[in-house]
């Protein structure tokens, strides 16, 4: 199957029952997406898939059959940092210490990126709504809210709003 991952086109030999998470981790060695509940309950495996409008949507890769994403464009946490540096939300997670053990962090960051792509100035309620599918056991939630607000503000600033 053909899959674009972090801007790179990949031609892959994928078993019919492989999940997107397995393909990313075991075939492409992109281990930022984590297996944790492995049944779409915790969000540690979150990756972004470009929707029809070009905007990224979060997907639980642990319950996503890889073949359903033929020809799609997938962004993992590894693809978020570009040559111009980390994504503003990654920087905000560091600045606001929205990280403890870090295991859920890639999924949290990507879910936040998807939110900011749809809503450049999210309210607390919108953040809670968008992030409630990403569990964190260390309890970084308050700082995640702060980081998302901070990144939203920085991104609006750089977009000339």
């Amino acid at each position, binding site marked *: 199957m053909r899959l674009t991952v972090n801007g790179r086109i990949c031609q892959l030999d994928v078993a019919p029952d492989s999940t997107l998470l397995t393909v990313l981790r075991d075939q492409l060695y992109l281990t930022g997406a*984590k297996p944790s509940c492995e049944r779409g*309950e915790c969000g540690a495996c979150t990756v972004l898939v470009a929707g029809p409008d070009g905007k990224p949507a979060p997907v639980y890769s642990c319950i996503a059959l890889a073949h359903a994403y033929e020809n799609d464009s997938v962004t*993992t946490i590894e693809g978020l940092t570009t040559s111009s540096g980390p994504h503003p939300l990654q920087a905000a997670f560091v600045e606001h210490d929205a990280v*403890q*053990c870090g295991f859920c*962090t*890639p999924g949290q960051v990507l879910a936040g990126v998807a939110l900011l792509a749809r809503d450049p100035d999210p309210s607390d309620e919108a953040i809670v709504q968008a992030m409630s599918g990403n*569990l964190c*056991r260390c*309890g970084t939630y308050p700082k995640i809210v702060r980081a998302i607000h901070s990144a939203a503000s920085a991104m609006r600033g750089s977009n000339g709003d």
Partner: protein
Amino acid sequence: MAIDTRDTREAGAFPRRFVTTTVEVEGREETKVVELPEHDPIPWDEDAQLRIVGQRAPRVDAPEKVAGRARYTADLTRPGLLHAAILRSSIARGRVSLDLAPARAVAGVLDVIGSAELDRRIRLASGALFDTTVSHAGQPLAAVCADTADAAWRGVDAIVARYEPEPPVASFDAAVADGAPTVRRSSKKPAIDDPARSPNLAFGSPDVVERGDVTRGLAEADVVVRRIYRTPVQLHTALEPHGAVAEWDGDRLTIWESTQAVFRVREQVALGLGISQSSVRIIKEHMGGGFGAKTSAGAHTFAAAILARRTGRPVRCVNDREAEQTDTGNRPSTTQRVTLGARRDGRLTAIVCEADVPLGIGGWEGGPAGMFQEMYSCPNVRTVESFAWVNTPAMTAFRAPGHVEGAFALESAMDALARELGMDPLKLRRINFAERDEKKDRPFSSNRLRECYDRGAARFDWDAKLPSSGRWRRGKGMAAQVWGAGGGPPAYAIVKINGDGSADVLTGTQDLGTGSRTILAQIAAEALGARLQDVRIVLGDTERTPYTGPSWGSMTTASVGPAVRVAAEDALRQLLEAASEVLDVEPSRLSARDGVIATDDGSGTITFRSLCDRLGDVMILGRGARGPNPTGVGLASFGAQFAEVEVDTETGVIRVVRIVAVHDAGRIINPTLAEAQVEGGIIQGLGYGLFEERVLDPATGRMLNANMHDYKIPTIGDVPRIEVELLDVPDPTANHTGARGLAEPPIIPTAPAIANAVANAIGVEMAELPLTPWRVLGAIGASS
């Protein structure tokens, strides 16, 4: 920073290098012989001028974590890596026989092991590995390794297991009932030789601790409250499951393990496999949370190691979520019968707690007595803890084991007493403030709980009335906490100064996600006079780092911090001596700051980098040990939390609006990271208070919610406004950094603060956690 280089050794005599000391670990006191450090630093007291310690330095490993570059155990790959999966028992009690042949025939499967394939008995917390006598559901029975994880699981599914089930003993009452079958042959013979005693009572149960005379205390009381409280089994539910990757090189074994205790795992692996500790290397780089559950080698560890040896290839074995929720330890449930007696003026005259704790098939004496013994001043206190073995998975430490359970019962009972007395609950707690550690009859090194009360009440606006009427009722509640978080030996550190003047700090502790790496770097940079970015912390590797104990008991900062400080000061002393040679001044006239050594009059300076250039191949190695704790004082961290809630009286749903937390943990090394610990503890405590509960089918002993959908941990939507204040007053009596522990304390008072607020809102006491909507509705219904 001035260095105290006094040589206390007398010429011609053996110096006293080892002393006996006591250390409180997870609420229990242990006696150890420990090494005295080479020098005793001048304590960092309130007047110490510190530049890096106390700063809000960014978490040093945050950039790699947000970039997805931080590698966890399951992320590791090795050439030829195989995958292992474990078959677990679907019955809770009985016998099993396995036919492994069908698994060996599955495509991709390379090896299968059960009890017959083990050449020695390997003991786990819950019994022997792959035991054919089943004593809990989820017990490991066999392991399969294959080319892929999917093939390994297909192999597990192909094993034919023939069970001879027997009815499980699934509760405390069933375990101690007459005629109950013996659940487990206890390794420790109980001190009580009583034929009528249940064989399922563990250790020395009942464990009775008493001071004064509670009968007299209750006779002297004007008011007595008697209550029964129940708490649920809570599951750690770390996002990263337990896992190991094992690889042999000849007869040397390396295991990458997600663990809070690399040296303890090494000891257990060496013992289990019958090889020397020097043949085993345990590495833990990053881990996705532990909370107490990751302190031992588990079935996954041994399965990976044994299969790797048999196949000659590296093997990864990671728990799936069901195994993680079922069989990696838990906070045991409790039934606590509490009696409090007080005079009309609020002074406690008696505290009694009788607790029943079903441990599961293994575990230790992690009961709730500590809170009752330590929290309040009272001349007459009696705690009676009974622990029972039952056919459920073994308990283990879970963030403030015992105290979390005890706090719910004690602090709920204190509010009940306040209502009986017609007294403000906070006032009642102030009246019974424990000036001293009455359990051990000694002073505390420092106890600023009264300041926590003052600041919390002011910030919360405790005295303000909360208008409440109609469907949504508002309420406020509070609770307090004590936890022996003084840390202690043994902990060791080595500071290596590199050729470019940068420093590597080696210490065998672990960073669970708490931020140990960051705060140890701050302490090292401070003591060394280096820049923070020039200090690298190397942790969690039994081969590279000197021994340090497990990361448990809120011990790391107060245990490892002092060892790191001594090692850094030892390295600095050597740097100054070398600089003295280069600058031609006495070492006593030199000091270092930001990686630059300068003379006291500013006439000469040299950077660490230039100095190391000049030194060429000289290796500066600083060595540090954690000295003994002070004798005759209690070491504990304190705090108080205040909660505001809204309760929907039609649905029973509780909305926690706000929590104000004020904690006293001595000096705060990094306020940002300390606040994160407090927020995290509160959120776990909120889960314990509101929804977390292992549900067990009593008939089969099987868990019914072994996943993250049916076992509810808090989501971002459950989190109230959390306001954290840290007193940040150094405690130089506890240790020379002035810091005590803070990881466990904040989870302790959250659930009782919420429960007290709910009782305040609806006018009915809540006696059982979690405070689910149906329990709230039941309480409202029962009262009306």
